[in-house]
């Protein structure tokens, strides 16, 4: 295969051509209630060729490898037709390297029987909680071998073994239904989904608690977020806006996102780090053969960096950061996050809550979205805080923010940083991309909260 790739790349008439080949094998098990719903295995191989010429891109993706050279020529032809922006690609070191998978307990060594037995146990735990009406449980693992080679002589082979599990408990009483979800994941360590019995029980108990939880009146509130929710907040509120492909061709956006601008209070620092071992968003090299990095985005509230592909870095005159990622060979890389987190501060969560006269303690996440300026992130569960104490449980709490505003209202950051690995990020039709988010408890003043029905 290496010979085939290198000969397809030899002597081509374009600024840059790359070949991406991916071989994968996935296995999956899903349950509806106690019954197996779907067990399956998929295998595949596919690839793409990208060409860059005069600032335009050509892209050809395929499942059969018979015609690499003529596909490369097609990609070049497309790139030349599309060229015109005059953009360049930033330099980065050329590597010839094989990176093995990060593996602690390889999920492929665990039999289907054992995986099923584990899921059966977790389902029993969920059903052991009274008023749980139905459940869903799913497990997925996938092994990928990815080869990237380009006309500059770069040849990077990487392997990844990714796994995730998701448990959903539905509580029902008199026609009212509420759900709670637990998502877990890991890079290469099946142990991350073992010993989840307590967490699964807590999730089922949350669904039941939500049956009696009240809706809060929509309005502005002081909100303390737990680590999982604060991590999603960082990802939506700031992470996406740090992706340079949103701004690199827009002068006005660049004026807004100027390095040195104060976006948050001095206690807020946000980092994106692809080098953290074992997290789902981690890798040694991105899908353009650029090494992954630890990148500070916000340091003490000040914008100090962004996430780049080779093209966005060149355009903005900054260093490439290794954030060009494609969800599969069927897609071109976009600028994406990896593991995004808020750095810990010095407060304790108890201190953050104790100061609040009337507010909300929001816990865990359903999801988040952003349109850059405005973002939402929804809590799995919440509690009213009155005079520093947690009171009645709340449901349907969705926090809404504004980039230019909300980060300036963070007035408390605790020291208890924790990462959540169950999520996936969506952008440009490429979803769910494995990422992780992290944060300590934080407190936000005057957050707009939607209260649900």
């Amino acid at each position: 295969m290496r010979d085939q790739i290198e000969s397809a790349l030899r002597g081509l008439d374009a600024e840059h051509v790359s070949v991406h080949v991916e071989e994968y094998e996935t296995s999956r098990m899903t349950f509806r209630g106690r019954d197996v719903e779907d067990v399956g295995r998929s295998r595949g191989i596919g690839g793409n060729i990208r060409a860059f010429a005069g600032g335009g891109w050509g892209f050809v993706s395929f499942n059969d490898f018979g015609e690499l050279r003529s596909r490369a020529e097609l990609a070049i032809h497309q790139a030349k037709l599309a060229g015109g922006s005059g953009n360049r690609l930033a330099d980065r070191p050329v590597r010839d390297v094989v990176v093995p998978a990060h593996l602690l307990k390889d999920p492929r060594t665990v039999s289907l029987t054992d995986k099923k037995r584990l899921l059966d146990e977790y389902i029993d735990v969920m059903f052991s909680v009274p008023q749980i009406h139905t459940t869903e449980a799913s497990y997925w693992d996938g092994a990928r071998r990815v080869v990237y080679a380009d006309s500059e002589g770069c040849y990077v082979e990487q392997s990844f073994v990714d796994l995730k599990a998701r448990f959903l408990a539905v509580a029902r009483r008199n026609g009212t239904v509420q759900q709670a979800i637990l998502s877990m994941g890991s890079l290469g360590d099946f142990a991350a989904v073992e010993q989840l019995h307590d967490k699964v029980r807590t999730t089922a108990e949350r669904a039941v608690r939500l049956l009696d939880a009240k809706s809060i009146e929509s309005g502005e509130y002081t909100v303390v977020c737990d680590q999982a929710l604060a991590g999603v907040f960082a990802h939506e509120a700031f992470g996406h806006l740090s992706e340079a492909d949103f701004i690199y061709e827009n002068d006005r956006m660049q004026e807004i996102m100027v390095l040195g601008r104060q976006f948050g209070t001095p206690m807020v620092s946000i980092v994106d780090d692809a080098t953290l071992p074992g997290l789902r968003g981690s890798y040694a090299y991105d899908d353009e053969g650029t090494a992954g990095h630890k990148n500070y985005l916000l340091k003490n509230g000040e914008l100090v960096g962004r996430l780049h592909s080779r093209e966005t870095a060149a355009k903005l005159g900054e260093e490439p950061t290794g954030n060009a990622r494609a969800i599969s060979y069927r897609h071109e890389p976009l600028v994406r996050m990896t593991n995004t987190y808020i750095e810990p501060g010095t407060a304790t969560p108890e201190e953050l809550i104790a100061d609040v006269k009337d507010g909300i303690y929001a816990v865990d996440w359903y999801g988040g979205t952003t349109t850059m300026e405005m973002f939402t992130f929804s809590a799995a569960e919440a509690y009213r805080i009155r005079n520093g104490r947690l009171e009645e449980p709340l449901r349907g709490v969705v926090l809404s923010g504004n980039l230019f505003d909300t980060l300036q209202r963070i007035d408390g950051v605790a020291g208890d940083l924790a990462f959540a690995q169950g999520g996936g990020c969506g952008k440009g039709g490429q979803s769910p991309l494995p990422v992780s988010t992290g944060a300590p408890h934080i407190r936000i003043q005057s957050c707009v909260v939607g209260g649900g029905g």
Partner: protein
Amino acid sequence: MIEQLLDRASKVSDQAEVYALRVEETPVSFEANRLKQLQTSETSGIALRIIRNGRVGLAASTRLDDPDSLVNDAVEAATFGAAASFRLPDPSTIPDVPGWDQAVIDTPVERMVEIGYELIDRLHSHNPQVVCDAGVSRQSYDVTIRNSNGGSHRYRKTISAVNLMGTLVRGTDILYVGDDQVWCRPIDDYRAIADEAIRQVDLAQKSARIKSATMPVLFTARGFASVFSVPLRIAFNGKRVLQGASPLTGKRGQQCFSEKLSLWDDPTIPYAPHSSPFDDEGVPTSRLALAENGIVRNFVYDLATAALAGEQSTGSASRGLESLPSPGISALVISPGTRSHDELLGSIDYGLIVDEVIGATQGNVIGGDFSGNVVLGFKVEKGKIIGRVKDTVISGNVYDLLNQDLTLSNAPQWVHGGLFVPDLLLPAVSVASRSA
């Protein structure tokens, strides 16, 4: 190859089905007002589903040259698979649902580039500060389904898709405008996409503040999609109903919505992007009433779910290459009302018109609770649009809201190719906005 695979699979199973998919796509992308990328993608793959000893197993692969691996994987999966008591469809009459237009495939890339530039020029010349991205693509789908009971079907579909998005930044205010059209034939009226974006830009010129209160909200078709589409699709999904995870479980024949609301699933609309003559397991499709005058009539089923529920398949099986079929709504259609959009707008004394909401589908969707940020919405006072609102959240419960004294407009529109709905005016929706 399909014959060979079916043959080998039949030797080790009671029933077998081969699903083969080939997709070719040629998207043309524009970024920052100019052409950026030309792309050609070919995807092909094959999935084998078997029923063996009363259990289902699925295996999929992109490799067409290794039937034995596929059969072995499917047999292993079936060892643990779900109990299956349904019969894969025998040969049957299939409705004629046209979806192939050679003109889509014959559209030269140069013409696609022309269309993109025309849209960008139209928006950009109206407002030179708008930075435009666009996409023009043509796709072909080729699906073959064959099973061991003799069922054998193939259909081909073409898809044209055109989208335009503009970003307008003024100070710290970021506005996104845009629209899209998707159809199985070449999109002749693509200029309307630019006109809609222009309409949004013009309306958003002025800002407005709105108070936090319960008030009338007029959802445009696009606004409706961003709040109601997902909960309704879940509610009528036979699998959710069976699990007791739909609020409509056990409510067939009951009045669960306003009597003005009639909803359909229609996979038979000629040249609509989600139409097909048979579903993803070869069962013929048909137009299905989900609710009539607010009374729940039908849920959507595939073969497996129908067997468990004691129902019949409604020809609603949907699948990706690597997963088992499960029930899905193809095109959600809502019967229109009699009032025009302008009449509905004119009837609002103080309220909101909502075109796009984010975050409304991230929460307890099965219960119908939602809360979302209005990213494109306008304050209405005495029947007139005053200006764009920001930092505004709408909340509620979908089932409560669809039981209000609602009014539907008389002109439904397609939204993203999967929803054909009119505007919806609700008299009382909770709105919260940041105070001045």
